[in-house]
Structures are given as structure tokens and as C-alpha cells.
């Protein structure tokens, strides 16, 4: 019979027990979180109050930066950001809910296309999407060349409507991932209960939406935070005078001499408060309810068979959405990369692949692509593990300080545009004291990867929160009482049960990191330019065709990696993993 190990009595053993308890896996986790997430954010925000702390000004404590930020121009740009955030988050979540229902609950033929296309939409950075639209509608853009001129559309595009539209498109995949993961874990018994008690299909849909509230709110919060911190779209589509948003103001305050990080930090703090509002709203909406519905008793869904008109509407909706969100920018990007002399008013245009041939040999593409691919691989793997732990923490009922702490910093990391987050890294990892003790990370590949992980962590975490919310605690308790320790429980039960969402999160992180620009710009080690920096360089040298061709290559390579990842999963994962949330159809 197995003996139970008691806690020992002697002092040395007590000390050992203390040490053993302290350096648990969770301690390691917190150490990582503090170093890559908390420290850079705190140091950056601190200069708003204490510029002298990092030699950014004469005062040790002042509110001057906030006074400067209260300038009506800045305040207006913050208001614009807020409006963009609200509009895009609500629209994106609503659309994503509808799409998720069609894809997961019906037998619409479009669903397979959507599942593939979602990744293309996810991995395209917002500035690329904006670029695609631009290439089509701009003067001497693709449409113009084809003889079509739409000045009205052009004007809309280069303003709040265009910005909101693209932020919505960009937000749909985030919201979709969160909602679809949650919907998969939702057995149909709840909707059936509505139907057998006399409720209509719509009432059943409403019931399902209510049960999905945590995921819906998660979606809204993610898209809101991503939208107000987005820089790519705003910089592409609006010169600051026309419709300035906070991120553009931030960018300007960082990129122009004299650089004022204190002002930048003050504006960031105000942006963060907006995000805290979103978080607060989310928790109020979800207070006290139980949404834990994923368990061994969850039965797979039977797909709804759509009628002819139903099928037609559903398919049209999906294909239409894909055409608008993906088709147009892709068409823009590809056609732009195939037209010789784009960006000019050349009379005769040649459509060919010259740009592609030129670019594939270019050092501006190959080395950066490989570098970024490696970095993205590492980032995705580490970030997903950290995100799984974080998301579990965020949904635990034990309402510790750690949970609130993590929640805030994850949100702060989203709310802070990449460029200021990167500056925070310089503050944190270029401290003279640290260097004295031989601890020098600034300027290394390692720091860049750490920054990538930190940038990816928030959205990856939130994309897993929906699933973790549905995970019944008793499943892991059952592991513990049947002989598995914490780590084994994770490896054998927790992770397998969210294996598909984990895979999706991995792919999402890979793609996002591959084409990441702002952090890459600030932190890349000399001689190792990441992909987006290389593309940016080409575009800066008036090589629109070549630059766009590089973008297309990059995206194709990312899609290949995603396809391989999913293929491996389908081939190698045990049946038990794959059947979770699978519909019977």
C-alpha cells in the first residue's frame, strides 16, 4: 500500500518545503510575466509622472504631461479613437456571432471556405488591408487603370468610415475565434430546451447568445482594445488633420523631435483608462452567472439542415463577407504587385510577375523572411503555453490579487500601441544597473522575441478565455485525486481538451508575429531586419510593386505554415481530442 508523505518537521526540511513551495511552476510563470509584460509597461507609464526616472525630463514628479495631453487636439483624437473602438467592436462581434452560427450550427456549404479564409484575414496586419483598399481606389490605382473612377468611395475610405470599416474587418477574426471556440463547447441542449418549451428559432438563438455572453464580451473587449491601439490603418488612411486618432498622435509624439515620452505616456494612460472601462463593462455584464458548460456530458451538435432559401442566404452572407473583407484587399495587393509602374500614370500597364521574380532574389525579402519565420515559430510556441496558463488564471473562481493584476497588464499590453510598448522594453532592459551586472538583453534577438511574446500574449490569452470558462473544474480535480500532479493534469487533460483552440491560437500568434512592424522596428538587432522592416524599406523607396509582392509572399508562406500545422494536427492528434465540439453532420 502506498504511503502518504507527510510534511516534515525539522527546520531544514521546513526551509526546503518553503523553497519547494516558492519555486513552483506558477512562480516561474509569474517571473516571466513580470519581466516581459509588467516591467516594460510600468516603466513606460511611469515617465508620465516621473520623467527624470529615465532621464526623459527634469522633474522627479509632475503632472505636466497630463496638462499637455489635455490639449483639445489630443483630446479630440482620443475621442475619435474611442468612437472607432466602439463602432468596430460592436460591429465585428455581431458579424462574428452570425458567421459563427452559420459555420458551426448549420450545414452551409460556405463554412469550409470560411474556416480557411479566417486565417488569411487574421494574419494580414491592418496596414496591409488598408493598403489593399488603397491600391484599388487611389488615384491611378487599379480601378482607375481599368477606367473606373469612384471619388465618392475614395473620400469615404480616407476618413472615419474607411478607418472604422477596416478596423471592423480586422476585428471580425478575433471575435470569431473567441465566439466559435465557445460555441463549439456549447451543447445544443440549451437551445433544445427553449424549443421544447415553445420558443421560436430566434428565441433559441437568443438563448445561445446569452450563454455565449462571456465570449461575446471577450470579443468586444479584444476588438475594442485592438482597434484603439491600432496604428496601421489610421496611418495609412488618414493624414493627421483629417481624422486623427490617438495612436497617430502617439506616433507623432514619438517620432518627431523633440521626442516627448512623458507626453506619450500620459496619452497612453488615458487610452488605457478607456480600455479599463471596457474591462469593467465586461465584468459587470458577466457577474455572478455560471457559464461552465463544457464537460463530459456535452454532446456534439447536429447541424441544422438549411432550406433552399436559408442555404442561399447563408452562403451569400459568408461569401459576400469574405469578398469584402478579404477579396478586395487581396485583389488590391496582388494586382498592385503585378502591375508594372503602379503608382504612376503610365499609359500602358503590363501585368506580369516581374515584381515577384525580382523580389524573390532580393536580400530585402529572403533573409528577413527566414528570420521572422524562426522568431514567429518560437514566439507562437512560448506564447501559447503562457496564454493557456494565463487564461486559466483569469477564469478561476479564486479571486486573487494575481488574477486582477494579470488582467490589467494583459489589457494594458493591448492598449499600448506596439511602438510605445517597444520603448518600454528599452527602458526596462537598458538600465545601467543591469548592464553593470552583465545582464545585457537590449539589442539581442532574445529581447525581440520576448517582446513579440509579450505583444502576442494578450490577444492569445483572451482567445482562450472562452474555452477555459467552459472547462469544468471537477475535471482537473478528478486528475488530482486520482494521482496526477499539477503538470501532468495540464498535459493529459487541460491542454488536450482545448487542443483545437490552442492550435488556432498558435497559428494566430505565428502569423501576427511574422508581419509585426512597430516592435520590430524599435528592437531589432542590427543586421537582422525582420520581414516587416524589410517590406517597409522597399515601400519607402517608392517600390510599391516590389513591396506589395513581398507582402504577398510573406502571407503565402504564413498560410503554408498554418496549413501544415492543421494538417499535422488532423493526422496525429488522438480521436478523443478532435471530436470535442465536433458536430454530427
Amino acid at each position, binding site marked *: 500500500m502506498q504511503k502518504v*508523505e507527510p510534511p516534515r518537521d525539522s527546520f531544514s526540511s521546513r526551509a526546503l518545503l518553503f523553497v519547494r513551495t516558492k519555486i513552483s511552476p506558477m512562480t516561474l510563470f509569474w517571473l516571466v510575466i513580470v519581466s516581459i509584460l509588467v516591467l516594460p509597461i510600468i516603466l513606460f507609464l511611469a515617465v508620465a509622472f516621473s520623467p527624470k526616472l529615465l532621464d526623459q525630463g527634469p522633474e522627479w514628479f509632475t503632472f505636466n504631461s497630463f496638462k499637455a495631453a489635455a490639449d483639445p487636439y489630443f483630446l479630440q483624437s482620443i475621442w475619435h479613437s474611442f468612437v472607432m473602438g466602439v463602432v468596430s467592436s460592436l460591429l465585428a462581434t455581431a458579424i462574428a456571432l452570425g458567421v459563427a452560427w452559420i459555420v458551426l450550427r448549420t450545414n452551409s456549404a460556405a463554412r469550409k471556405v470560411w474556416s480557411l479564409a479566417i486565417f488569411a484575414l487574421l494574419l494580414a496586419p491592418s496596414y496591409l488591408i488598408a493598403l489593399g483598399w488603397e491600391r484599388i481606389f487611389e488615384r491611378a490605382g487599379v480601378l482607375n487603370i481599368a477606367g473606373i473612377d469612384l471619388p465618392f468611395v475614395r473620400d469615404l475610405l480616407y476618413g472615419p468610415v474607411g478607418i472604422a470599416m477596416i478596423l471592423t474587418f480586422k476585428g471580425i477574426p478575433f471575435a470569431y475565434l473567441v465566439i466559435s471556440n465557445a460555441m463549439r463547447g456549447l451543447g445544443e441542449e440549451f437551445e433544445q430546451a427553449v424549443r421544447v418549451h415553445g420558443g421560436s428559432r430566434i428565441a433559441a438563438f437568443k438563448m445561445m447568445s446569452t450563454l455565449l455572453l462571456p465570449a461575446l464580451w471577450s470579443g468586444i473587449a479584444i476588438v475594442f482594445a485592438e482597434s484603439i491601439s491600432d496604428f496601421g490603418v489610421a496611418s495609412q488612411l488618414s493624414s493627421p488633420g483629417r481624422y486623427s486618432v490617438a495612436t497617430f498622435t502617439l506616433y507623432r509624439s514619438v517620432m518627431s523631435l523633440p521626442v516627448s515620452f512623458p507626453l506619450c505616456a500620459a496619452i497612453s494612460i488615458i487610452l488605457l483608462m478607456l480600455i479599463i472601462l471596457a474591462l469593467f463593462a465586461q465584468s459587470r455584464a458577466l457577474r455572478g452567472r455560471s457559464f461552465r458548460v463544457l464537460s463530459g456530458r456535452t*454532446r456534439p451538435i447536429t447541424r441544422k439542415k438549411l432550406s433552399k432559401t436559408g442555404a442561399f442566404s447563408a452562403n451569400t452572407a459568408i461569401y459576400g463577407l469574405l469578398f469584402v473583407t478579404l477579396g478586395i484587399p487581396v485583389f488590391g495587393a496582388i494586382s498592385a504587385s503585378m502591375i508594372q509602374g503602379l503608382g504612376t500614370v503610365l499609359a500602358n500597364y503590363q501585368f506580369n510577375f516581374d515584381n515577384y521574380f525580382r523580389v524573390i532574389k532580393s536580400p530585402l525579402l529572403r533573409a528577413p523572411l527566414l528570420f521572422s519565420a524562426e522568431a514567429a515559430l518560437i514566439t507562437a510556441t512560448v506564447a501559447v503555453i503562457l496564454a493557456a496558463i494565463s487564461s486559466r488564471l483569469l477564469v478561476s473562481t479564486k479571486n486573487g490579487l494575481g488574477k486582477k493584476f494579470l488582467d490589467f497588464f494583459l489589457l494594458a499590453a493591448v492598449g499600448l500601441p506596439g511602438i510605445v510598448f517597444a520603448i518600454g522594453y528599452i527602458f526596462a532592459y537598458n538600465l545601467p544597473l543591469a548592464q553593470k551586472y552583465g545582464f545585457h538583453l537590449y539589442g539581442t534577438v532574445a529581447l525581440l522575441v520576448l517582446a513579440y511574446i509579450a505583444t502576442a500574449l494578450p490577444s492569445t490569452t483572451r482567445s482562450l478565455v472562452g474555452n477555459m470558462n467552459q472547462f469544468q473544474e471537477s475535471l482537473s*480535480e478528478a486528475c488530482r485525486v486520482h494521482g*496526477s500532479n499539477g503538470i501532468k493534469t495540464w498535459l493529459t487533460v487541460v491542454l488536450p481538451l482545448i487542443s483545437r483552440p490552442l492550435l488556432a491560437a498558435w497559428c494566430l500568434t505565428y502569423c501576427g508575429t511574422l508581419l509585426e512592424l512597430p516592435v520590430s522596428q524599435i528592437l531589432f538587432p542590427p543586421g537582422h531586419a525582420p520581414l516587416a522592416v524589410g517590406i517597409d524599406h522597399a515601400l519607402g523607396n517608392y517600390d510599391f510593386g516590389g513591396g506589395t509582392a513581398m507582402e504577398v509572399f510573406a502571407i503565402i508562406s504564413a498560410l503554408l505554415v498554418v496549413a501544415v500545422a492543421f494538417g499535422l494536427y488532423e493526422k496525429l492528434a488522438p480521436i*478523443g481530442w478532435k471530436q470535442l465540439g465536433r458536430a454530427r453532420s
Partner: protein
Amino acid sequence: MSNGHLVKIEDARKNYGSLAALDGLSLTIEPGQFMVLLGPSGSGKSTLIRSLAGIEKFDAGSIFLDENQVNRGPVNVAPEKRNLAMVFQDYALWPHLSAFENIEYALQRRKLPKDISKQKVNAALNRVGLSSKGKNYPHELSGGEQQRVALARAIVADPALLLFDEPLSNLDADLRERLRIEISTLTREIGATALYITHDQSEAFALADRIGVINHGKLEQVDLPEVIYERPLNRFVANFTGISGTFTGQVKQVLKTTCIVALGEDQLEVRHTVGLEVGQSVDVLIRPAATSFQNESENRIGAEITDIAYRGRGYEHAITTKYGTLTGVFDTRSHARGGTISVSIDPNRCIAFPSETK
């Protein structure tokens, strides 16, 4: 000769905010004993069993498994090191593993060679009557089947302590009884010590070697089922372990183990377990087993039949007397609703307690 732990819980305390879930509770379970904790929801039984499992912690107090203390203050021996197993109310089968794999998982800690392990798992499946369902996943099994898999999972590794967290409450009535028998026999077969919590008193009485009645984090009474039933120490225990009805009256005379209580025009001889005085106002708690239509005894009251329910073996009647209603009055013959009848009360199966001040 049992393989079970000796379980000792001393002065357990646990607060959730200002609410005391456990209030200085102490309990001993002998090796191989089947202890049932009976109590209403919120009484603290869940907290106790989960702390015993190691998935929750006491604020103060200690737990000993055999001679080993498994907790000291905030430091806890991890659940996986306590050599126990648990059956959960919601079955907690892992959805991504088949029935076979679910059971096999629990056996991994014994680190047996693969073929022996396989044998044991199949034996466990067989034992719960599911040998053909090994490959099925939880969502392909009915509720009863799932709970049987959970049971097989719990016993397969021959743990020294088996914990049951209201495992039958999600099952329908006929399944419940069958599974209860499985639990009872299997546990005793492997000789583990068992702690079972429930709010269902009939379940408790059917299963237990000993029952502990728990309320507001305190143990009201721990004893053999018969003793609990016949000599409840206080009103709560009596009420919670099956009462047909309650009459209020005044003590006329106090005898050694019984007393005479005046109820308006009638009087009844009833037991008492606490000291009573003449003239004291008392509530008489009457067990269903105390009631009978057949026996001719001095302890009798007139009543009117208000409801009758057929139970297969006979009929249970609900009757109304001048002093209150009584339910569960059994007879092999049926007596029609609305009829009058005289019901006799066995003094040994009803107890008088001082009236509660309103």
C-alpha cells in the same frame, strides 16, 4: 483486515468571508469503515470532503491519514500523494478519453506493467457491468453508465480512502438504488475507508456503517444508523432523519426513558433524549415507523385520511389529526381518502424535544 486509511480530522475550521463553513469539526473514521455525512446543502460537508481530498484547505485544524498529518496550516500534502480516489457528483469523466482510458488513467500512479494494467481495467469495467463499453466516449454513455465508469475509475487503483461527493443525486430513482448497491458492495470488497456525503437520509441509512449528521459546519451526532434513528440527540438530527409529523403538547409526567405528553384531549407516551420538566411545552417528533393502523395500543389518536399512495408492497397514507398531519403511514391494505381511522403511535419511535420559542 482492511487496507483503508485511518482518518482523523481535528478541529477543522473554514470561513468563506464571514460565513463559517466548518466550525471546529472533529471526526474519526476507522480503517475500512463506511462513514456517511448527512446534512443539508451549505452544512459544510462538501468543504470537508474536498479538504480531505486536498483540493481545498482548512483555515485551521488538521487531518491525519493513518499517523501522517497531511496538512499544517497553509501547507498541504498534494491530493495525488494521499492515495485516495473520488467520485464526483457530475461524474467528471474526461471527455477526450474513452471509458477504458478514463479508468486506465487512474491506474497510472501504480506504475504497473501494461498487460497487468489492461487486465485490471477490464476487470473493473466488468465489475461495473460495462465490459462492452470500454471504447465508448463519455458523451456516448448514459448518466448511469457514466457514473459507473467513474466508480470503476475510483476503485481500480485500490486506494486506501474513497470519497463520494453526492454521486447519486444526478441519477433517476431506479438507477440510484442499483448504483447505491454497487457502491456499497465494491467499497467493502476492496476494503477502503469511505467517506460519503449526501443530503438524502434514506441513502445514508442504506449505506453507512456510521452516520455523521452535520449542520452549519458542526457535527450534531455521530453514531450507528440505528442509534441516530432511534435516539437522535437533538431536534435537528431527528428532523433531518425522517419525520412523519410533529405535534405540540405539554409534559404531564416524566418517566425514565419516556414521558406522557398531553395533546389537547389526547395524551401520548413518547420517548425523550433530553431532560424535560412537568408542564414544559414540547414538540413531539414522530417517525413514520412509529405509526400504524393495525396495532391496538393505548397510544392512539383519531385521524382522517387525506391522501393515499400505492408503493407496490402496500400503501402509504397521509392523515390529518387534531394536532397536525402525519405522512408515510403504511398499511398493506388501502384506506380510502376521506375516511376516519385511528392511528397508534409506538412510543419508542417518537421523541419529544422542548418547543422552539417562536
